[in-house]
């Protein structure tokens, strides 16, 4: 996902001025993935939201000193958000891998059986199906964790509190 361009950055201006523009843009970018990422099947939106959380976190890690104290708390919240979205992404990468291998081995076995030979990979089927079941269950659990984490961030005013921390830095 290409990052949204931050406009009006001046290399000669104080860091605090540029940091404010950057963090506002990255925060807006992150929050913009909701509600799209609240759909468990929105694989791309969930992946992009993870990247957006990472960008905001890294920007805050470098510039938290320009803002009020909640900026430091936000870094921790973003790390947790990035981690749970990372777990979901790992399942989204591993599931097709297991499915593709099962398909590949099955196709090779169909060819062997059609040729009058025994299926060479038949002992692998059960494990590959079990792996997919485990990964799907794990993804459901991790998505539920993400869903409640985001609800908690909203309930505790993550966005307005970080915006307030940005304003505190301007004083």
């Amino acid at each position, binding site marked *: 996902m290409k990052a949204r361009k931050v406009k009006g950055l001046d290399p000669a201006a104080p*860091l605090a001025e540029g940091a404010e523009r950057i963090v506002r843009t990255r925060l807006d970018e992150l929050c913009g993935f909701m509600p799209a990422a609240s759909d468990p099947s929105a694989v791309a939106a969930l992946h992009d939201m993870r990247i957006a959380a990472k960008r905001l976190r890294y920007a805050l890690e470098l510039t938290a000193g320009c803002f009020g104290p909640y900026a430091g708390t936000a870094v921790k919240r973003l790390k947790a958000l990035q981690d749970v979205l990372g777990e979901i992404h790992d399942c989204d990468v591993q599931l097709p891998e297991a499915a593709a291998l099962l398909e590949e081995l099955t196709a090779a076995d169909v060819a062997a059986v059609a040729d009058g030979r025994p299926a060479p990979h038949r002992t692998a089927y059960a494990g590959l199906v079990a792996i997919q079941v485990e990964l799907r269950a794990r993804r459901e659990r991790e998505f539920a964790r993400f869903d409640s984490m985001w609800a908690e961030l909203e309930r505790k005013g993550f966005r307005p509190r970080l915006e307030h921390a940005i304003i505190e830095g301007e004083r």
Partner: protein
Amino acid sequence: MAKAGDVELDPGEPFAVAGARAVEVRTEELFGHADGVLDTADVERVHDMRVASRRLRAALEIFAPAFPPAPFKSALSDVKALADALGERRDPDVQLAALKDLAAAMPGVQEPGAEALAERLRGRQVLANATLAGALEHVERSGLRERLLALAGQARDA
């Protein structure tokens, strides 16, 4: 996992000067993790270097307007290529670790399936390691560390 070093940035200092320091610190962190990164027996090394590459890339992108465009573009492109190679190596490491946990809980009848997938992933790990070796060689040959530090110096002097 190695924790990123603190970068002391003063809110009142010029954006370009802050960017120069951030890139210097993150550059040294990246190259500080290069030893033994091709060792597939110690997967934490590649993880640490990958995280350091992402932090350096982030610092470059955050402070992009502070750097002279042409050398910046070339250095960023090389950092991205290195980060991609590290990611490509890291992915099978993560999948193999997850698979090991899954397989530990599987009854015997399911083991051949887990082994077939592990074999596939190990093959990918070997290929990715070769790609990473090439990327590291390019980094060395093209003097990426020196180019990044020179970029930081130019931003500070501008």
